[in-house]
């Protein structure tokens, strides 16, 4: 513990020494002889210039703002510390993956959509789930009334997953499932379907989000106390490392942390801190860091402050590589590489004058590309109030294609490298992240900092501060607090018909009526035993339970009884 604290503390000291810029005599002269007279003559005085992380931006950056060993901090593309990108030729070799996330009401709707995508050459499927599924309540739970199929597809039992993947060969696609608290159950269902298709598990690939720490931090979708979820993820990690080598069992997500109102630095620091926790978890479980670290991937937000976002992504790669090498003893380059998916910000979109969101998304997407992302989802312009329309999705996809094929920004690797401002900002953001790591370590680690509410309060304060800046007009949102058009009405959201809910409940009733009740209760009893014993891996028991058609809620209720629930610390 002491040793750990030492690591981040010394990194922080190193970085802040590196970043303390020496006095630039030339610049001082320029300020006096050129800038000042100009300001006096024109009367143009500078406004306040700060970014989302409350970092103050200077008028001009020069070589003096960078440390002597700046080149060492950069390296070359595809080489440690990967600041300039994880691949040597980046987009000159292969463009990023344009992955558009989609969620649909019933399993039947989703199945039709997936088949449509496959027939158009898509092989990377992406599935969103509705709220009751994310919290592991079945569709017939009274609390789920009115929420079935609203924000994604509903899954209450294996039967629903069978419908979703009906007629789809799982060896020919990879599937990304955006699910966290019940991730292990959904993973078990997916594995079960693969086995029924006669596939051995090393033939299938995919991703579950399963980043439970960020749930407690930002998205707030949990079932049990943190330790219980962490243990389940650990089991999934071990099981997959042994049996499903192409399964990405954690996608460490900053996206939701940012959408919860954090700054760029907070998104970066808290996400990487989560990542370090998972690395430690794997190591403690006896896994080889060079074997499992390459399966960890990241998911960042690209927001509206252009250079701040780019600097954040570049800093992220450098910090991750440094920590994996120096702190966690990784030996292979693959284990040190931070690969990430990016989604443009939802927070920055306005329901007013919705078409201007296209422009925002274009800039945010461009920042992600200049930041070296591996895949990208661009938001649709109507996403602030609605599930996106088909036309809006097309515009969003075309935006990516324009960035890739018209703008020329992909012609060379990491085109912004060497910009005094971008490199200074990258270094500065890195330092600020170290400051948080140091603080978190001194609190006893990220889990403790989340359990006592420190991280959540930090985000809530930033979020409130930003909201007030918007209200005071200090931060501009075109169309919302400046250049406002009167008499605008928000557009309407897409409605999922109530029949979706009725259909789900019908299917669930049918499952319950036709399954073998004895098998269900026996498999749940065995699952309970496994859950009670921290040394037993629960994955095989979860697979057995889902195959007996025990429902998502029934399975999770076993955990609710064994582990209890969880109440948030005081945040307000």
């Amino acid at each position, binding site marked *: 513990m002491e040793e750990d604290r030492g690591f981040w503390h010394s990194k922080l000291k190193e970085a802040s020494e590196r970043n303390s810029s020496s006095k630039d005599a030339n610049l001082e002269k320029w300020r006096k002889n050129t800038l000042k007279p100009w300001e006096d003559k024109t009367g143009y005085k500078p406004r306040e210039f700060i970014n989302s992380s409350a970092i103050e931006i200077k008028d001009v950056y020069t070589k003096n703002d960078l440390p002597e060993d700046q080149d060492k901090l950069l390296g070359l593309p595809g080489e440690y510390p990967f600041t300039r990108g994880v691949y040597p030729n980046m987009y000159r070799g292969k463009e990023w993956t344009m992955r558009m996330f989609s969620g649909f009401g019933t399993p039947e709707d989703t199945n039709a959509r997936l088949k449509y995508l496959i027939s158009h050459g898509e092989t990377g499927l992406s599935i969103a789930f509705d709220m009751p599924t994310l919290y592991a309540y079945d569709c017939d739970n009274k609390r789920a009334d009115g929420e079935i199929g609203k924000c994604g597809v509903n899954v209450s039992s294996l039967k629903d997953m069978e419908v979703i993947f009906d007629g789809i060969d799982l060896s020919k696609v990879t599937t990304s499932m955006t699910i966290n608290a019940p991730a292990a159950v959904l993973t078990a269902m997916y594995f079960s379907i693969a086995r029924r298709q006669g596939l051995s598990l090393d033939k299938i690939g995919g991703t579950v989000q399963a980043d439970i720490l960020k749930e407690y931090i930002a998205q707030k979708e949990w079932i049990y106390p943190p330790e219980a979820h962490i243990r389940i993820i650990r089991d999934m990690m071990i099981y997959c490392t042994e049996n499903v080598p192409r399964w990405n069992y954690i996608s460490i997500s900053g996206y939701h942390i940012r959408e919860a109102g954090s700054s760029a630095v907070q998104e970066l620091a808290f996400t990487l801190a989560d990542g370090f926790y998972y690395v430690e978890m794997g190591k403690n479980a006896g896994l080889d860091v060079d074997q499992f670290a390459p399966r960890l991937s990241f998911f960042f937000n690209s927001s509206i402050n252009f250079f701040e976002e780019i600097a954040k992504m570049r800093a992220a790669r450098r910090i991750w590589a440094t920590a994996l090498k120096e702190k966690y003893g990784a030996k292979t380059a693959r284990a040190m590489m931070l690969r990430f998916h990016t989604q443009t910000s939802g927070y920055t979109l306005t329901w007013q004058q919705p078409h201007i969101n296209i422009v925002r998304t274009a800039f945010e997407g461009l920042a992600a590309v200049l930041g070296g992302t591996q895949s990208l989802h661009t938001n649709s312009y109507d996403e602030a109030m609605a599930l996106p329309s088909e036309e809006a999705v097309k515009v969003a996809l075309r935006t990516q294609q324009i960035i890739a094929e018209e703008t020329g920004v992909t012609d060379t690797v990491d085109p912004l490298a060497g910009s005094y401002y971008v490199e200074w900002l990258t270094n500065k953001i890195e330092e600020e992240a170290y400051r948080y790591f140091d603080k978190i370590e001194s609190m006893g680690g990220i889990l403790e900092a989340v359990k*006592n509410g420190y991280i959540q309060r930090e985000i809530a304060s930033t979020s409130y501060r930003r909201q007030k800046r918007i209200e005071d007009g200090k931060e501009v949102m075109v169309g919302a607090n400046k250049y406002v058009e009167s008499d605008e009405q928000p557009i309407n959201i897409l409605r999922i018909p109530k029949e979706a809910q009725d259909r789900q409940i019908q299917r669930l009733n049918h499952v319950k009526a036709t399954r073998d009740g004895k098998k269900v209760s026996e498999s749940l009893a065995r699952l309970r035993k496994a859950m009670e014993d921290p040394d037993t891996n629960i994955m095989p028991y979860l697979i057995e339970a889902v195959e007996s058609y025990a429902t998502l809620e029934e399975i999770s209720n076993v955990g609710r009884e064994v582990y209890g629930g969880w*109440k*948030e*610390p*005081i*945040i*307000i």
Partner: protein
Amino acid sequence: MSKKELQRQERRSWGRIETNINELVSGVKENKFSSIARAISMVEDEDPLLRKDILRKIGAPTKKAHVVGITGPPGIGKSTLIGNLSSGMMTRGIRNAVLAIDASSPFTGGSLLGNRIRMQDKLRDSHVFMRSLANRGEKGGLSRSAIGAVRILEAAGNQEIIIETVGAGQADLDIMNLADTIVLVLAPGLGDEIQAIKAGIMEISHIFVINKMDREGAYFAMKDIEDIVSMDDHSDWKRPVVGTTSKDNESYNSLIEAILSHRKYLEMNNSLSVKRKFMEMETALEDEINENITSKLKKKLIEVQTSGNKLSNDKSDEDPFSVAEELLKNFLEYSVE
């Protein structure tokens, strides 16, 4: 204007409450949560007449309640501890209620009543009444509403009334004065915070709790406090040090035992709720003075200022004290007549 008329005019029109007040009082005595809640609002209101009215009608309790103040630095799990303590008491058939105090902003008067969230599930399951009170930043304001709330909860038949405070500041000490038993909650690894606390609340606490006993350093923390307590020489009450952890429900039983034996100790010395009775009377007296003297004098002062009728020897420009003295003197003479 006669005294009565003045009073009538000052009195807010609270028709619905007035017609329902007897109903409200019987609701309180039947431990009806909605009635208790509304009655507490009435004593929280900064209208002394409203407060007086409801508390009078509620009258003396049939059975005295024991008030337990729980304090300690923020972030050491007081709320979770209270949830467990309170439901543990219910299991033993000891009816209790919880008051949680939060700080208000001295500038806006607003406050975030955040303590509820950590304990509400436990309390709800055990059917315990819980209420948040804001310390409105006014001197004595909080203890005034807390005193009233305690009276109401006592009338509702609660044997134990648990008060949680923010763990700092003058308001906290005021509330602690109201408590028969003060429980100071600490946790392992506090270090500096313990030093800061030692200064004030340490001396007046009756029971020490080391929470989060499952943590590293817990036994050292306990030993530290035991060392301090072993030097006690000013009382017959041997101050116990209790360890608790949310991982072990049994651990709360020893805290309940400690609280109950301090109650017994107080009862044997006839000192249960003695401090509280004095505070009640003191507050009532302040209210009376406020209502009958201060507010009238202030009115008089405004009259004097706006009407231009100067006092006999007007020195208000250079000396506000002489104005004050003369106003009070006139008033007292008038009242005596």
